[in-house]
Structure formats: structure tokens, C-alpha cells
């Protein structure tokens, strides 16, 4: 079983009230170092077996056609989720391995 991640963010010039709400809350919790917050969506699409190039191409197309609204959003990444990270997602561990 493989997974593809699609990341969608509001276009930079579009107002992001959600991100603003978070940005406003962070300092109240003592987090002062962040100058801006934007909130987007992350989709994980699962396929049977390994992820093929066809899968990726389909995911890219679906990202543009369905998962994002091109009037206000950009698809910023479409990539295979690596096994290890997927396992971590399953078990809920925080992880900074994707970098």
C-alpha cells in the first residue's frame, strides 16, 4: 500500500483568515517568534501496491481538478509519502524526517 501526499495552500495574495487566527493566538500562548501563519490542506491519497508514475500523474491531475480551487489556491506539492513516514503517521508520532 502506497500513499501520495498533495499539499494545497491559499495563494499568497489571498487573505487567510484561518492562518491569521492562529497567528493571533500564538503570542498569547507565549510563542513570539513567528511573523506569519498560513493554513492549507494536506491530502493523503492511498493506492493499492506501490505508487507508480501513473498514480502520481493521476494525483497531480486530481490535485488541479478537484483538490484545489485554482481561483484561490495553489497545489504546492505532490509527492510520494515514504513508507517510514507513513508508518509514523499511522502510529501518530511526530516526525521531521520529510525535510
Amino acid at each position: 500500500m502506497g500513499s501520495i501526499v498533495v499539499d494545497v495552500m491559499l495563494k499568497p495574495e489571498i487573505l487567510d483568515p484561518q492562518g491569521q487566527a492562529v497567528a493571533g493566538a500564538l503570542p498569547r500562548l507565549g510563542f513570539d517568534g513567528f511573523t506569519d501563519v498560513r493554513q492549507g490542506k494536506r491530502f493523503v491519497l492511498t493506492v493499492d501496491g506501490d505508487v507508480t508514475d501513473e498514480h502520481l500523474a493521476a494525483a497531480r491531475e486530481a490535485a488541479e481538478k478537484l483538490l484545489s480551487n485554482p481561483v484561490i489556491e495553489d497545489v504546492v506539492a505532490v509527492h510520494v509519502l515514504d513508507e517510514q513516514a507513513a508508518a509514523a503517521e499511522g502510529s501518530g508520532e511526530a516526525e521531521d524526517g520529510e525535510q
Partner: protein
Amino acid sequence: MKVGVVTFPGSLDDRDAARAVRECGGEAVPLWHGDADLKGVDAVILPGGFSYGDYLRCGAIARFAPVMDALVPAAQGGLPVLGICNGFQVLTESHLLPGALIRNDHRKFNCVDQRLVVENASTAWTSDFEAGQEITIVLKNGEGGFVADEKTLDVLEGEGRVVFRYVPDADGRNPNGSYRHIAGITNERGNVVGLMPHPEHAVEAGYGPSLDGRGFFTSIIKQTLESAATA
């Protein structure tokens, strides 16, 4: 008898909750999110609305308001607290109540006159009802699906802490996909109650589907008066 009603930025049904308290004979005291001061009230209502726009998760940002710093320990110490809709979401985000509220399973905001069964008539806020009684009050939310892990659900059931359940429709579905049709729950002590439907919209003839919401407010008023008398 003073019932505090908290206003967060984005609270919407705060004036309605205060009106309901007054209609049922209590005194409503406005509490401000920015003040860690409960003004000596006998009970507190966290009202419905979209605190901070509900942008991150419903109730997630309100949880950190100064007023909650005062409210959380008071509730843990037995102060009666009722969380309605967004207020329920704030209570779960604050871990005063277990579980969480997620997007309705049909993904739409839904405003309906909803039938509920009162499962527990011994909490601070439900003593004027009878267990098993059916009431109709307003349900209106976009994120009202109650979820919790199986263990938590079993504990809630086992300890009689499910306070309200939705009456399912002919297809056995409830209006938002809540696990086990749960509409409202209480903490172990029975002083903190949270529910998605809105009793404050069913207290005045001509404005709302019924008068069934009055029981919440008369319960707390009676209880406070009684405990004052015995104190």
C-alpha cells in the same frame, strides 16, 4: 442566583443564553473572555457561536482565553458549567469533558428542530427533566459530530455520563454522525455538562420549536437555591 455567560470574540448566542437565564428567573452576569474573573457567579454558561471564527478547530483558541484560567479550576472544584454548541467544543478542547467534536458527517451546516432523549436527569443542569424524557430543541452547527475512542465511550456509558442522545431518523442516522448518537455528556461529578443542541432557543413561546429548553435553566436555578438553603 447568578449565572455567568461568557463572551468570547465571535460568541453569538451569548445574549440568547442570558435572556434564557432571565426568562427562567435567574440573574445573568456577563463575563468577558479577557478577564480571569468569574464575578462570584453560581454557575457559568459557555454559549454557542464561532469563537475566534472557529478557524483552527472549534473552541481551540477560546480555550486559552484568560477567563478559562479561572473557569477550569472552578469547574474542577464543582462549579456548574454548561457548554452549548461552541461552548461544548471549548469544554472538550479544555479537557473538562472527554472526546471531541468533528465536522458533521454530511459536511454541511445543519439547522433543525431536533428530538433528543434525556438519558441522565441527575446532573446540575438536567434535574428538572425525567430520565427517558423526549425533548425537542434547536440543533445548529457544522461541526457537531461527537467522537471519542471506544474505551472513553464505554466509560461514558458505564458511568451514566451520556446526558442526551439524538433520536435517530428512520434510517437509524443521527443529524451529524455522532458516535452512539451522543448529543451531550457530563463529567464525573455531574456539574459540567456539554451538548451540541441549543436549549436557549426553546424558552419563549413563539420564538423556537418548544419550551423544552427551560428545564436546563430551571434545574440550575433550583439546585443553586436548594444548596444555598442547606448550606
